[in-house]
């Protein structure tokens, strides 16, 4: 008797926004799949975001329902090697029903497709899209919340990609290399370990355990990508929704910051509030400047370095210009100049978080 191909049936049926996640959950209960989910924010429709010319990747829309689009992507590898030269797959783009300008890319295709075809394709849509930054503290809160809200007894970390920030003891060449480990630690142990290393998780894979039984293997990455092979509805409600909210909030906070966005040409600064006296001495301020110099595809002019810091930044990707100011030890102030795009701000903030220190991003208030 021929085995029923539930996946083919799944793609043969139409899925609207209300039912897509439930339909995916049903499919994954029937056949083993890993669902990869990547939230992003954008003011453009998915087609406008992704249709940009890519020599090696062909993209087409194969189905549309209200709030859901199904797309096909074919990647022809320019390299000759052991990997298959052509890889293709389907993915959904789901428009969040409550959060404006917020979308989720979802696929059940292989990790090879995700890694080689889909993720680079999405990343090439910069600066049209904003990927979230799941910083260390946020990731910790999300995972503890997921464990507690879903009644799991533990989340056992089975694989972690850790990156360390550079310090005097750790030169930057060493610090930028990610280290991969399979620590078999509980959540607390994993986050303590990262803190000791002055690092952050690029991704964290864990088993969701209830009474020693593994219910799903889940990965959460700093760029917001979530992968899960089970417990989809719980993952959606307790992990993905939080990341969507962060993408949405950041997009809302970062947009319309260009001085040209308002007729009076006023500045609309943002602050990275470290929540502690992070920049208390000259050494720390020098370190911040050195770290900012590492940002790829930028020019960084040091207008003033001590005791206050004033830097002028050009983003060579989209031509955004910024000033960075340090006027007290607790915060880094980001001032978008005449042109300061959402993507440009995101790139700056992400670089600060990844390579210097994390903090909360806030609208600048004159009296802080």
């Amino acid at each position, binding site marked *: 008797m021929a085995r029923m191909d539930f996946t083919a049936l799944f793609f043969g049926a139409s899925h609207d926004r209300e039912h897509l996640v439930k339909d995916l959950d049903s499919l994954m209960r029937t056949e083993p799949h890993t669902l990869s989910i990547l939230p992003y924010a954008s003011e453009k429709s998915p087609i406008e975001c992704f249709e940009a010319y890519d020599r090696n990747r062909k993209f087409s829309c194969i189905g549309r329902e209200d709030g859901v689009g199904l797309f096909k992507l074919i990647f022809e590898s320019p390299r000759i090697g052991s990997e298959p030269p052509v890889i293709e797959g389907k993915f959904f783009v789901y428009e969040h029903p409550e959060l404006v300008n917020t979308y989720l890319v979802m696929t059940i295709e292989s990790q090879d497709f995700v890694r080689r075809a889909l993720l680079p394709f999405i990343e090439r849509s910069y600066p049209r899209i904003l990927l979230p930054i799941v910083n260390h503290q946020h990731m910790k809160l999300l995972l503890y919340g997921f464990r507690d809200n879903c009644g799991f007894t533990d989340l056992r970390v089975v694989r972690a990609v850790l990156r360390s920030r550079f310090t005097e003891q750790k030169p930057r060449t060493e610090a930028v290399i990610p280290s991969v480990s399979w620590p078999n630690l509980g959540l607390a142990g994993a986050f303590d370990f990262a803190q000791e290393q002055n690092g952050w998780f690029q991704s964290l894979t864990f088993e969701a355990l209830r009474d020693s039984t593994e219910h799903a293997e889940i990965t959460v990455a700093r760029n917001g990508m979530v992968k899960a092979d089970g417990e989809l509805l719980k993952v959606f409600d307790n992990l993905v929704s939080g990341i969507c909210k962060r993408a949405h909030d950041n997009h809302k906070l970062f947009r319309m910051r260009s*001085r040209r966005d308002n007729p*009076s*040409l*006023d*500045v609309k*600064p943002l602050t990275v509030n470290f929540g502690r006296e992070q920049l208390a001495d000259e050494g720390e301020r020098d370190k911040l400047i050195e770290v900012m*110099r590492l940002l790829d*595809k*930028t*020019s*960084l*002019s*040091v*207008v*003033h370095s001590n*005791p*206050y810091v*004033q830097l*002028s930044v*050009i983003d*060579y*990707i*989209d*031509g955004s*210009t910024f*000033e960075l*100011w340090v*006027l*007290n*030890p607790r915060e880094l*102030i980001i*001032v978008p*100049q*005449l*042109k300061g795009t959402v993507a440009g701000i995101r790139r700056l903030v992400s670089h600060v978080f990844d390579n210097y220190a994390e903090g909360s991003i806030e609208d*600048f208030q*004159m*009296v*802080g």
Partner: protein
Amino acid sequence: MTMVQPVDETIEKLVKEIRVAIDDYNDTIHAIIGFVNLYLIDDTYRQRPGVKGFQGRHLTPLSRGQGSIESKADYYVSPDLGVVIEDEKGILGEVKKNFPKDDIDRGTKVFAQLKGYDQALTGWPVESKNVESHEIVLLVHLATSAYAKDFYQDKLPTTGMVFEHPFSIVEFGRFEQTQEFFLFRTVLGEPTEVGGEKKLRFGVSVPMRVFLREYAKTKLYDAQPAVPYLAELIWTHIVTSIASENPNFEHLRKNQKIEVTLAIDDVVDELNEGFSFHFWHGRYPELQPRIPHKEWVREACQFLVDCAEAKWAEGSQDTKLVVFYHQRYKDILNQFVLSYATLEGRKLETPMLPGFESKGR
């Protein structure tokens, strides 16, 4: 025969001088913003409705004495800062970050400039263009404020110069105490303060972050900045913006360039609207000069031409510039300072025949 310094040493010295000039320029802008805001905003940092501030405004004498410099039709004074309180009371100020020590000529020159404000002036930013009374303030960095005070008290009387309008000296400086502050304190006289409180006598310190919004958009006032500083502003804020509209911008390789054509007048307009004290002059713009002056912009553009970053558009007679925009520099200001110092250093090194000397900086 004079000893000639090695080129590298000369360039290094020039780099330091330019850096100091840029710092002084920015400190002067910060002092203007800080001092005028003592009047513009109240203790809770809210705007006072009856106070106006201005910078670089052209004021002319109400009566012109015959045969004097003031008698010329185009004579005007342009103080670094001005305040009008309730359309009646005026304050005019000049910022001299480094008051000269033991230099009578230069000290006298500073006070001679201030003396130009010591007369009935017209052109104030009020309906009638006149105010009932005004006073004069000299702002000096706290490192040299004592010299300014001594000069006023001891040396000025020997020159016969006397001020008829109320005159005061206020020192300013930055200090760090949990955050960066800007301090203003009276060292001589008694400047008017809104509300009549004598806070300036004991020193008024304001966190720099209060003025961040103003600092970030004010890069120019009515004094010519160092050429590389202005060139960096043009490159960063104007040339980059135009170049980024080119589809090749994002993928520009290190050795590739985008040609960007600029009209000098447009550069002046953009910098004036985006990076000068333009935002203070909304209601009474008529006597405000356009900052930067066209000549400054032309000089900065000529520098870009001299260091092969640009060329003058053919037949444009120095009114249009073609910039070869690239993304090679990781620190544009530093690069321009170095290039400018190198060009100037070489000029100093080149032996000149008598009568063909370099004009110098």
